[in-house]
């Protein structure tokens, strides 16, 4: 991947900012998401809540199903491959996906190495639960980062924890003396240049979204106020009572995340939220996959 291509891929993430990326499993859902104001859709066979319920090995979706969604909407279409599964990523690139999510939601294919994303022309987004993970993924070629949160739970606690952790570490590096950055680079296992970028700009070198457990307009507003540049909503929409209305409300909540009065209006009459499961009830912690 040329430097130029990497810049263009980071640029696409910039265009998605202030927006909501929604999980969809059919062309019909994709159209509902687009009409509700999604800035992109994530095409996958099963949403995380169902992956969690079904158990077993979870893999890249059928390319035919992804192509059906690409044809149904005009907004960018993303799809997931397993951590380390570069052959799945090659397939997704071959069908001209707009963004690949190398995702802990699927069963990891490699328990040591992530994909060398610099070998690809299409962009990658990766999950991270702290700054070290984020910078390691960026060093491997990711052009967008999202918090891992805990997918398919409808519980926002882990997305909050990961976002707070990342922001706290960014603030800490921002306030360091220059000569302390070398040791931090060593501790995090990332090149000095990336740490220096964070020190100088007080942010990640790529766009950072929140993901994993966002289920309500208030959840979305919370993540935006904590510093997310946009939000992924997975199971939260199509596992709820009124997907259309909820999706549309979450989109508006991301735009006006600081206006509590409007958020109150948006939160009215949304019907049933996804039931969700608490952190203590989960048997499988997806966020622990890929570090």
């Amino acid at each position, binding site marked *: 991947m040329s430097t130029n291509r990497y810049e263009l891929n980071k640029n696409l993430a910039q265009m998605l900012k202030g927006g909501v990326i929604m999980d969809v499993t059919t062309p019909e859902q994709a159209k509902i998401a687009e009409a509700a104001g999604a*800035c992109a859709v994530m095409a996958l066979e099963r949403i995380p809540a169902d992956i969690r319920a079904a158990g077993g090995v979870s893999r890249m979706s059928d390319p035919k199903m992804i192509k059906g969604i690409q044809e149904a909407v*005009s907004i960018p279409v993303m799809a997931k491959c397993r951590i380390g599964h570069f052959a799945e990523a090659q397939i997704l690139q071959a069908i001209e996906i707009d963004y690949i999510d190398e995702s802990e939601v699927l069963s990891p294919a490699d328990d040591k190495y992530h994909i060398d994303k610099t070998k690809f022309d299409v962009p990658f987004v990766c999950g991270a639960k702290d700054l070290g993970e984020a910078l390691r993924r960026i060093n491997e070629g990711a052009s967008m980062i999202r918090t891992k949160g805990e997918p398919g739970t409808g519980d926002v606690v882990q997305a909050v924890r990961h976002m707070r952790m990342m922001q706290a570490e960014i603030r800490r590096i921002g306030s360091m003396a220059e000569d302390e950055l070398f040791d931090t680079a060593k501790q995090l296992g990332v090149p000095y240049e990336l740490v220096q970028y964070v020190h100088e700009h007080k942010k990640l070198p790529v766009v950072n979204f929140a993901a994993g457990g966002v289920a309500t307009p208030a959840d979305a507003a919370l993540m935006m106020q904590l510093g997310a540049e946009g939000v992924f909503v997975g199971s939260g929409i199509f596992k709820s009572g009124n997907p259309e209305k909820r999706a549309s409300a979450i989109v508006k909540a991301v*735009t006006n995340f600081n206006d509590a009065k409007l958020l109150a209006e948006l939160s009215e009459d949304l019907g049933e939220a996804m039931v969700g499961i608490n952190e203590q009830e989960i048997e499988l912690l997806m966020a622990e996959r890929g570090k």
Partner: protein
Amino acid sequence: MKIAVLAVQGAFIEHEQMLSRLGVDTIELRQRSDLEKHFDGLIIPGGESTVQGKLLRELGMLDELKARIENALPVFGTCAGLILLAKKIKNDERVHFGTMDIVALRNAYGRQLGSFYDENEFEGIGKIPMTFIRAPYIESVSGNVEVLARSGGNIVAARQKNQLVTSFHPELNDDLSVHKYFIDMIKNSK
């Protein structure tokens, strides 16, 4: 001078940073009450036109802003902004502001693999960097629309009196000249 940047979705911060480097104050338009503030010009940033169009309508800003554009408010649309201003979108039934006599083609270069960087002549400025991200281009113009730049033969920048559009993203490169061009448009409109 104060320039409003539509901030419902997309790369609005990048435009604010460009304007700040040029010493121009900005305000963000996120909802109807923001329209009560004073501003001399409007920037519609890159992002998803479907999202921006929907939010403009549902947050109650579309009609008011459209009336002001028709009443000579200087406006600069990049990428999604170009689509919002176009009177007709060839591959989409939606029309948003529809104030500019251009026919736009959405995602004209295909998906993200079709995104590219280029340098081309811009009328009145010279050669400038151009970053195209899932970009549209202008298929045809009518009325008194002036073509300002082309890339590979396709129209990628145009102006019609108070309206300026680019299908590329001047806010993503270091070059301030297109933003300066817009600021001059505002100055000359007074």
